[in-house]
């Protein structure tokens, strides 16, 4: 049996009280609950405080460039489809620098789980506005207020992701459950995680979120209804819905690849005789 001690990583260098701690705890307990050993997972992260998470747990780790965790995560998943691949980003990483990859990974519906630590601010570079900062939010780089934020939930749904959820790092059990469902889902599973930055975002605090988040699970709601899901995606204010906002069985990119139908690429023996046949086509 996998125990929580199997996931004891390096000591985090996050600020005390950081929202990231809740995400780390929720991820570790999800992996333990699912009885997944560390060597079966691959954590691919980007740059930012979120990008450091893989070092603070255990598993195979590819800490990639800013904005780029998704492409290497996809490459690794295709190379070894038996790996449980989890990509990890912050809001700047996923929706700013990595926006194009996010859009197209959702569109192609790759079979990976994507955790986005969304604190609506840049933490690592010390407090600049992010693509999800609220309209009018004042920071050093937006002295006249931030522009319109992106809506990652709506973006993921209309782009074609087959699992779109929002979690809150202040509700670890709920988040852990979402992560388990995201891992179990076949297809691109986005979990956008509301995560207060205690050092630089004094607006969207734990308290602020606690007053607003409401669990979709508590309501009657058909999450495979794309239109209803899109409506939920636009609710942001007095109420902020958390939980699975959209989930359906959609075609998965990896299932379209004939090479993967015979097993993981990495386990297939290479046979040069098949190349020999190709040469004849050029005579």
């Amino acid at each position: 049996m996998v125990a929580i001690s199997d996931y004891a990583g390096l000591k985090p260098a996050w600020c005390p009280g950081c929202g990231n701690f809740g995400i780390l705890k929720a991820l570790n307990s999800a992996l333990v609950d699912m009885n997944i050993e560390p060597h079966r997972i691959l954590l691919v992260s980007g740059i930012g405080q979120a990008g450091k998470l893989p070092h603070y747990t255990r598993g195979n780790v590819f800490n990639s460039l800013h904005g780029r965790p998704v492409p290497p995560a996809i490459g690794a998943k295709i190379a070894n489809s038996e790996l449980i691949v989890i990509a990890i980003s912050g809001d700047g990483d996923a929706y700013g620098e990595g926006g194009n990859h996010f859009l197209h990974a959702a569109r192609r519906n790759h079979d990976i789980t994507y955790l986005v630590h969304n604190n609506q601010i840049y933490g690592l570079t010390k407090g600049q506005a992010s693509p999800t900062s609220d309209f009018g939010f004042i920071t050093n780089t937006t002295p006249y207020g931030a522009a319109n934020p992106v809506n990652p939930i709506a973006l993921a749904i209309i782009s074609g992701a087959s699992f779109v959820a929002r979690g809150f790092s202040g509700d670890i059990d709920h988040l852990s459950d979402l992560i388990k469902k995201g891992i179990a889902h076949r297809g691109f599973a986005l979990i956008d995680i509301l995560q207060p930055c205690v050092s630089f975002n004094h607006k969207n605090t734990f308290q602020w979120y606690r007053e607003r988040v409401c669990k979709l699970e508590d309501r009657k709601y058909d999450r495979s209804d794309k239109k209803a899901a899109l409506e939920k995606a636009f609710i942001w204010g007095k109420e902020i819905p958390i939980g699975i906002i959209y989930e359906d069985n959609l075609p998965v990119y990896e299932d379209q690849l004939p090479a993967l139908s015979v097993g993981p690429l990495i386990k297939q023996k290479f046979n040069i005789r098949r190349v020999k046949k190709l040469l004849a086509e050029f005579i």
Partner: protein
Amino acid sequence: MPIDFNFMVGGEAGQGVQSAGFLLAKVFARGGYHVFADQDYESRVRGGHNFFRIRVSDSNVNAAAEGVDILIALNGDSIELHQPEMVAHGIIVYDGEKIKGGSDDHGSLLSIPLEKLAEEKTADRLMINTVALGAALSLVNYDLNMLNDVLKDRFEKGEVSDKNFAAAKAGYDYVQSKHKGKSRKFQPLSDTKRMLLTGNEAISLGAVAAGCKFMAAYPMTPASSIMEYIAAKSKNLDLVMVHVEDEIAAINMTIGAAYAGVRAMTATSGSGLCLMVEGIGLAGITETPIVIIDAQRPGPAVGLPTRTEQGDLQFVLHAHHSDFPRAILAPATIEDAFWVTVNAFNWADKYQLPVIILTDQHLASSHTTVDLLDLSQVKIDHGILFSEKHNDPLDYMRHRLTKSGISPRAFPGLGKALVVTDCDEHDEEGHLTEDAGERTAQVQKRMRKLISLEKEITTPQRYGPKKAETTLIGWGSTYGAIHEAVDILCREDTRVNMLHLNELWPFPAKAVADAVSKARNSYVIENNATGQLAQLIKTATGYDVTNQILKYDGRPFTPGYITQAVQKGVR
């Protein structure tokens, strides 16, 4: 008398220039001839002016040559533009009923009612190019059945190949009845079976022969046909090609697949490579083996999309910030492109670094005959791998400090070892660190890999008389043109030899310094504006090669061009 004969097909995009040119090249290759065919085309789908040159010889050829023996002119521009290139007694096949022939002062124009024949025999005006092809084969009295076989192989549908053959036969018979004996006679030479390959095909075959299982790429001329070939064969060979959203995704996805343990590559051209630069460094610091094909074209920015240049050498030497090892290879010929690609995958694995292969439009889209590749010579070396049979997986450290700088590789999920790596500076385990000592140790470890890699570099190719007044120095795809220029110059009593590099980094400084210091007179010959190899030679050896034959008009060198430039200089 040796055979060295040039066909050319000229016309607008959409008139079937490429198709007729390819078929001509193929029928002569099937007949045991050596063929070199290059393409000159504009960046448009319809219109403009394109040509396809096919050089047919009874000995090995690796370059295009001046002088056209038979021109198939599908439009008026082709006549106007290429008439000055016709040899004495050359023939221009054109449809005098449809296009103006221009002046006939060379006595070379031969009007054939191409369109009329196409309509009569196939009821399809689109067959004009094939009628002309038949006419050209008839002028040299070639065996038409050879074409029939080629058509049957090319077109899956019997009716398509039959229609093409009927068109070709119409042109063939017309010439036989009216213009028999106008040109020299060609018969199939031998049964020797050679492959007719483009540079991109050679690279694709090299990659699959090396066991490449993954490619991610974004289409860009002149590299696109590599990703298309790999995609087309992905079912047969159980490999994956992902057409991604941009070049940034391409290189990062390639790195992800390689980290997970499969051989992986990407292919692009210069400005696509600009977007990939961050990935070169990522592969460098995470020590992930990847192969990057840069099919060069003139720049900067979009430059001349469909034309050729060797302008990326200094770029790929330095692309990315800070210091880390890389390898740069530049195939000399289309056959060499196959072997260089196999080699690139081995070096990438053994030294765990990015390997860049520099080709260019000229090499990428030219066709040449190549002896059937001997796959038994393909050796696959994955380098040092971590074995859980002999080691405790808990002890595994992806970036372990070793004497050679090479840390054994393990792959995520295949065993119990955890494979950790980071684009931040990291410790031996792969976790990020800011420790000064660990940083220094990791930089030194990575750079140490070059010591063993340098030993893999073979001596640059030498050709021509050992003692010569002049040494011609080149790299990459200019090999064929320079090689032939050496032959021509030596025949004309100018003693020259050549030094050619297909491995550029690590740079074989000692061998090059030795050659340059012994030559009385050296020239670098490069398809770029600033003599980028000359700059590298200067940096690596201290020698200044001031004689430079540079061409940056987007067109490839020919032996004749080099010969004239050297003769002018030597005089």
